[in-house]
Structures are given as structure tokens and as C-alpha cells.
């Protein structure tokens, strides 16, 4: 393993990664990662781009916290803690920044995720706005642990359509990867 570490760093550098993290995440870690990323790119990016990257990062990391099936729980004082694991990465892709997340999901959730994302990806800006306004007034799906607005929020902050894929992990699980590009175009 040790002999592969530098190769990994070189690989990430070759892909112009600004930030890369894979492991357990938490709300506090989200605050810190957000802060680090803002500081890393503040010299070469304007405030609007940084704000959009941050907004996408928050939705992606809170999705990992809520939906990743890679979880560890334990006792903490009188209560419990739950740690969800996932991947978060920010990189440069041509003229854009890419904001990428990844986490393990159950195969039975694939259909629900892909149908929602396909719908949003096919929309133009005006349709996205109307969908956002409608969804904001709707009670979330029973399976949704948040407001059900995360994907549409990311899509509206991104300058190009969201991209996603599923990679099989085992018979019942897949790795869900999601990418949003943020650039000057929109």
C-alpha cells in the first residue's frame, strides 16, 4: 500500500483535483471542508462561483449523511452517534469546477434516484425553476429524509446538466457517483 500512495497523489494531481476525501462525514466536517475549499480557490474564482460550489457541496454531503448505507453507529454520552461514509471531491475540468460525490446505496433505490435525476437533467432553466417551486411546496416522499430538493438545488447551481452513474458493488449494493460542473457560462 505505502508504495502506491505517491502514485495516488500524482493521479489526483493529473486530474486537477483541488480536494479529495473518502471516509466518514459529519455536519462539522462539512463546515470545515466547505471553509477549506472556499479558501483554496478564492484567489482564482469570483464569489458567485465559490458560493455555487459551496451550495452543491452542502447538498452532496448532506445527501451522504442521510442516504449512504455505509454507516457506523455507537454510543456517545447519553445518546448515539451515526457516521455515514462517502466520497467528496472538487476538481478543475476545462473552464469549470467539478463537484463530485459518491456513496453506496441499495439497488432498490437506484430506480427512484435515476428517475428523479433524469427528469431534472432533461429540464431547461425555466422548467427547473418551476419544478423547484413546486417541490418546495410538496411534502417529501416517504423515503426522503430531507426536503427532497437536493438534486434540483444542485442542478440550478450547476452550469451544465448533472451527470451520474451507478457501479455495482455487490449483489444488493451500488456505488452512486454524481457530478456537477460549475463555471462562468450560466
Amino acid at each position, binding site marked *: 500500500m505505502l508504495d502506491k500512495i505517491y502514485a495516488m497523489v500524482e493521479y489526483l494531481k493529473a486530474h486537477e483535483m483541488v480536494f479529495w476525501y473518502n471516509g466518514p462525514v459529519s*455536519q462539522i466536517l*462539512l*463546515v470545515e471542508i466547505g471553509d477549506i475549499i472556499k479558501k483554496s480557490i478564492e484567489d482564482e474564482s469570483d*464569489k*458567485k462561483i465559490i*458560493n*455555487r460550489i*459551496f*451550495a452543491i457541496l*452542502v*447538498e452532496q454531503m*448532506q445527501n451522504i*449523511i442521510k442516504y449512504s448505507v455505509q454507516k457506523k453507529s455507537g454510543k456517545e454520552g447519553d445518546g448515539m452517534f451515526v457516521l455515514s461514509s462517502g466520497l467528496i471531491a472538487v476538481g478543475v475540468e476545462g473552464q469549470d469546477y467539478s463537484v463530485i460525490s459518491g456513496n453506496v446505496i441499495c439497488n432498490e433505490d437506484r430506480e427512484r434516484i435515476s428517475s428523479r435525476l433524469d427528469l431534472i437533467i432533461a429540464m431547461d432553466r425555466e422548467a427547473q*425553476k418551476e419544478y423547484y*417551486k413546486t417541490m*418546495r*411546496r410538496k411534502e417529501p416522499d416517504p423515503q426522503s429524509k*430531507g*426536503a427532497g*430538493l*437536493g438534486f*434540483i*438545488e444542485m442542478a440550478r*447551481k450547476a452550469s451544465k446538466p448533472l451527470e451520474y452513474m451507478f457501479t455495482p458493488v455487490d449483489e444488493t449494493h451500488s456505488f452512486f457517483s454524481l457530478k456537477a460542473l460549475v463555471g462562468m457560462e450560466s
Partner: protein
Amino acid sequence: MDDLIISATRFTPGIRFLFSKHTLEMTGESYPENTSEFYTPIFVHLKNYLANITDQKVAITLNLSYFNSSSSKILINLFDLLEEAAEEGRQITVNWVYKEGDSDAREFGEEFAEDLECVKFNLVCARY
């Protein structure tokens, strides 16, 4: 009714609901993991306040530099509550503060304003 003051954290806004002065302010960033845990007690106070005033002028200042999608849903609930109170005769003004040049924050304000009829909604550009 006692004022409601909650200090801001790195992911929850500062709350200064000065009920005695009829000025309510929310300032900062809003992206808690669990929005209802943070906002439910605040809504209890606000509903209680609105139920106990009649044609009072109320000024609400929202100066939120960032809010996540679930906080956006909370804001919709807040505006619904205020609109209902305004329909019943209370004179409610919302000041939506955005930083100069932050067109995304301005657009958020404009989108919220589209659903309001009785609440007076001001877009306030802050130059700092």
C-alpha cells in the same frame, strides 16, 4: 412576550426576534443537518406572537448569506405563516437583504416574493 435571541453558529443563523419592538431578524447562514430541530421551537414563538397582535406593524429582516435546500422549505413555511397573518390584517413587511452583486441571493428573494400578496416585500441591497 419575551424576546427570542439565539446566537448564530457556523451553520445556523442568529435570531433576534424583538417581539416588544415588533422587529424580527434572522442573520447568517442556514444549513443545519436537521432543519426542523432548529426551526420548530422558533416557529412556536413566532406563531404565539402573531396570534397575540392584531393590526400591528411588524418588520422582518432576513439577511441570510446562504441557506440549503431544506432551509429553503422552512422559509416557504415562514412566508406562508406571515402571508396568512397579513391576510388577517397585520401589517407585515419583509426586508430581504442580499449582498451587492449577489444575483443568486437576489433571485431567491424575487422567487419568494412571487408567492406573496399581502406581505410587503422589499429587496434590500447591502453594500459592504
